[in-house]
């Protein structure tokens, strides 16, 4: 069966379609909002919000008795927001630092969530089975109406982001300056954080609370490697998020007993690694390659220079020098054999006797030129 048929077959599966679409949307929205979170140094806030969402989900169920996505999401968003406010309040009023406040609120809220879950477990309505899917996500349980909810909420978030684009850009770069221009910084901050909370909350059903933070951070971190422009970064981040979501959904559906949430996270992590290594300019692989090229160039020049020195000492340009001499002279930089090979190809050296090397007339010229250059620049 060819690729098209294969893909066709995959998407013919209703459940898989729902999962893929849901995962793609969560990827896009979190990639986009995650960009701002990362730029504002709030990478781990996503972790905090997602862990804090757990009690909200449980409470929403306890209060409304409903397991509808919307109700649970609202509960999640509420406690997520409260957690954020609490963290800010702790930092503002005590000498407890941000990371401590974050870890504290995160673990306490999550612990409380577990208390509620185990409480619900005992209720006559064996309801808890549906709720602990939020721990690690259970994308396979995504229904069409869940996907619609995710889509609508995600769409609203993206629209808001587009509308207030320049305000959010300004807020993220220089909030004091924004204030001096007359923008209500606190309101904008609240708005942006709310969008982040919604973005996180819509992904919980797919990836779960424990892993959600990766979906906020990874696409953005990856995208940053490819561009220096905010608009491009945000777009690429959304694309990466969708890519991770869909591939994760596909892969986990093909193999048995591989949960979707972790797979999506690993796809996202792979994208990050790929970007870190291979992105043009910032990619570390290129840096490594550049370094190697430079080093080799230096070595070749050094060997040429050594031969020049030897030639001047011996007053006999054609006289061959044993390779061991060159190796001794080169103990600071190495790479003699390779350098000689390259120099021979360029016609700058010759091998008058076996294992003995000398400069050609062209080589003498080149070496002379280089040595003048060195003298000028040092």
């Amino acid at each position: 069966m060819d690729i098209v048929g294969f893909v066709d077959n995959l998407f013919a599966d209703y459940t898989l379609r729902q999962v893929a679409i849901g995962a793609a949307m969560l990827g896009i929205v979190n990639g986009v909002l995650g960009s701002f979170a990362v730029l504002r140094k709030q990478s781990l806030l996503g972790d905090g919000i997602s862990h804090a969402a757990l009690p909200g989900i449980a409470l929403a169920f306890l209060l409304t008795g409903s397991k509808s996505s919307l109700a649970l999401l609202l509960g999640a968003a509420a406690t997520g927001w409260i957690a954020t406010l609490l963290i800010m309040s702790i930092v503002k009023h005590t000498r407890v630092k941000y990371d401590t406040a974050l870890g504290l609120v995160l673990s306490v809220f999550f612990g409380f969530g577990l208390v509620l879950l185990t409480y619900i477990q005992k209720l006559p309505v064996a309801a808890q089975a549906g709720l602990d899917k939020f721990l690690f996500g259970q994308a396979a349980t995504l229904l069409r109406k869940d996907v619609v909810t995710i889509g609508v909420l995600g769409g609203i978030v993206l629209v808001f982001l587009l509308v207030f684009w320049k305000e959010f850009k300004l807020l993220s770069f220089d909030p004091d300056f924004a204030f001096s221009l007359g923008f209500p910084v606190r309101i904008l901050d609240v708005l942006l954080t709310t969008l982040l909370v919604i973005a996180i909350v819509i992904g919980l059903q797919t990836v779960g609370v424990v892993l959600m933070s990766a979906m906020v951070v990874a696409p953005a971190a990856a995208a940053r490697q490819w561009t220096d422009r905010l608009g491009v970064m945000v777009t690429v981040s959304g694309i990466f998020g969708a890519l991770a979501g869909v591939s994760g959904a596909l892969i986990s559906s093909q193999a048995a007993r591989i949960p979707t949430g972790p797979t999506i996270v690993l796809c996202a992590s792979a994208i990050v690694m790929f970007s870190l290594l291979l992105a043009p300019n910032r990619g570390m692989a290129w840096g490594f390659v550049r370094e190697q090229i430079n080093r080799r160039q230096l070595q070749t020049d050094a060997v040429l220079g050594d031969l020049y020195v030897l030639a001047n000492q011996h007053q006999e340009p054609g006289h061959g020098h044993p390779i061991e001499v060159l190796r001794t002279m080169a103990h600071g930089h190495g790479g003699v054999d390779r350098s000689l090979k390259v120099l021979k190809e360029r016609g700058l050296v010759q091998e008058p006797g076996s294992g003995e090397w000398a400069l050609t007339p062209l080589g003498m010229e080149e070496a002379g030129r280089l040595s003048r250059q060195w003298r000028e620049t040092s």
Partner: protein
Amino acid sequence: MTFQDKGIGEGKSGIDAGTEPAVRVEDLTVAYGDKPVLWDVDMEVQAGVLMAVIGPNGAGKTTLIKAIMGLVQPVAGYVSIFGKPYLDQRRLVGYVPQRNSVDWDFPTSVLDVVMMGRYGVLGWLRRPGRAERKAAMEALTKVGMADLAGRQISQLSGGQQQRVFLARALVQDARVYLMDEPFQGVDATTERAIVTLLKEMRSEGKTVVVVHHDLQTVPEYFDWVTLLNVRCVASGPVEEAFVDRNLRLTYGGRVSYLTHHTPEETFGTPEE
């Protein structure tokens, strides 16, 4: 300190004494927790002057700027810009923060940052367009950064970063400028360029208040000076205020300020 006493006169550097001062600060007191950072500061900046604010570290200079703009809340006191509260006059005030107050790794270009200066005029939702771009390029030309307009800001030197901030302030076309240590850590060429720019702004009738760290250059660069050390020690034209006694009071450790009471009344006899 009453303003009658200051003898702020007419005809100094061509200022019309009938107009409101560009910035007036009265009884400004700011505290962080228990610690007073600014105490009962009275200060007036006449329109059209180029003023330096100097004082030792922790003297509250940055806090003064921020308090004028409402970025920090004072415990007491009042600020007015041309006679009206700052919040009503934000459009008239341009702010140049310290260079290290932003993350220069943010993915944006020089031109983009300068255009942000026009956001206030654009207001909500409207996108910057050709007019904004033109204004930004003009400002960049003025600071000598026009050919770096497309450069990513993380690739700029300290002096270049400062020029970008200045260009961003220029496009605001404000009447009063508050600058926080614009000369900090810039190369000599940039420093000269900034001074030239500031003097040009003054000749255009703008008022510029600069938090400055280098005492040596005060008389050369500025015509007015405020000496601050939690309290306002002195404020006035450089020839009058930038004198030994005031400098000693400002930097000498013990804080005090001049009142119309004789020094003996306030501080006791010299032997004490």
